[in-house]
């Protein structure tokens, strides 16, 4: 499961650090103590930044890094789609062999396919993605409240 690419993201996380954002969330995986604080910044429909701090296992930390690489700069709809495909892959119990279409959507994140075989680790891989989803909902809620 420890693909080169995962280790690389773990050792050299992209976009790590907390920067200005529209919403901040703190997620924890109580069984292993993985933690992440994550902020999102939107410019209209565009996700302009995902900044984060965290501690935990290689899978959870690499997950945050790859999320940053993959989602920043995307339109919200596209980012949501990527998130859904990633979720599907992670919940596949190793049964999905990523095809080209999936690779096109997930890019480097297909390296996580192997993790889906390890039920105890799937939560780690998804930690930052769930945090992102939550932060986005908050940011949009706030945005809606503001425009309302």
């Amino acid at each position, binding site marked *: 499961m420890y693909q080169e690419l995962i280790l690389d993201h773990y050792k050299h996380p992209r976009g790590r650090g907390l920067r200005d954002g529209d919403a901040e969330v703190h997620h924890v995986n109580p069984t292993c*103590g993985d*933690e992440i604080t994550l902020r999102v910044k939107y410019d209209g429909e565009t996700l302009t930044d995902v900044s984060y701090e965290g501690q935990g296992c290689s*899978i959870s930390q690499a997950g945050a890094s790859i999320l940053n690489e993959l989602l920043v700069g995307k339109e919200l709809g596209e980012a949501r789609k990527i998130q859904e495909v990633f979720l599907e892959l992670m919940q596949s119990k190793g049964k999905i062999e990523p095809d080209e279409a999936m690779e096109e959507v997930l890019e480097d994140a297909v390296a996580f396919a192997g993790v889906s075989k390890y039920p105890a680790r799937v939560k780690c891989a998804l930690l930052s993605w769930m945090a992102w989803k939550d932060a986005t909902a908050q940011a949009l809620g706030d945005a809606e409240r503001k425009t309302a």
Partner: protein
Amino acid sequence: MTQLPGLLDIEAIRKDFPLLDRVVHDGKKIVYLDNAATSQKPRQVLDALNEYYEQHNANVHRGVHVLAEEATALYEGARDKVAAFINAPSRNEVIFTKNASESLNLVANMLGWADEPYRVDSDTEIAITEMEHHSNIVPWQLLAQRTGAKLKWFGLTDDGRLDLSNMEEVITEKTKIVSFTLVSNIMGTVNPVEAIVRRAQDVGALVLIDASQAAPHMPLDVQALGADFVAFTGHKMCGPTGIGVLWGRQELLEDLPPFLGGGEMIETVSMHASTYAPAPHKFEAGTPPIAQAVGLGAAVDYLTAIGMDKIAAHEHAITEYAIKRLAEVPDLRIIGPTTAEDRGAAISFVLGDIHPHDVGQVLDEQGIAVRVGHHCARPVCLRYGIPATTRASFYLYSSPAEVDALIDGLEHVRNFFG
């Protein structure tokens, strides 16, 4: 092969345990170092289970047919064996439960529903420690919530021992029950029973000892311990899953109210009122874990034949060796006592800033099974400011070669994430 004084004849013993031949990850023979979570089962125990089901299976008690009589004799015979194993004054003091957690909850519930002088209520206190397994924390939190009693606890010293310096504050005249573990499942610490029991007796509090990590590993004598209740679990001591034990002093078992109601635990039932059977049956509602008790009886026979003192000596030797070798691993920090004195064979550690999940996973790829996480003792992790630990834990079949495999494995982990 490394020879250490006090080792058992490991090769012979390992032949009794079919699972130890298991091969994982394309050809790696398992190195099973997760014994504090559960032990493997000797052939002798599996044979006892099969023989029970194939030859004698029936529901126990009150049957007049031959199978019912055989099953009852086997089930009650297991009680005799367990009573002898822990030196109980009477077989009627041995209650079979489904696991140690049920045993601990049973005591908490008995005391919640008891009459004076045992009753736990809003004027009273409960004392535990910060190194308890969740199964010896949550039942008391529930009891405290539901009765209004106050929950107190002993803290920990930096080297993984109980801090008894504030004994008088933790155990007071209001304390009704003191419940603590004999051996910590996360740090291996062996606790000073005598000092705590003495204080509890001074204030008239009952004492419950969680012996889940002791019964498998050392001679256990409930009379010598001086406690009122002792709980442990079958699956960690070569027995099947689904069986636990609560030992309690006879007068207490007579005085305290039942917990679960149903068949087996009654004397006579009418729609308007029921009376209860004497202990131990009063606390065993429904069809008991019959085969599992029989299996535990076989486990106790197996352990006794080897000798609990010899097993303790073996584990002491392995633990000493493991501590010595772990000290060679750079950046490794043991959480808990760093010598083999007054400690059991569970050793927790952190390795630099590599998360235990990663340590465990890479060890697993090499066929080495350790446990990672908070080991159902999260307050200990909070106390030492760590999210989790990696824990290697040994048993009577553990060998120095397995310790060596662990050390090599950790070296590999460090290189992998280095």
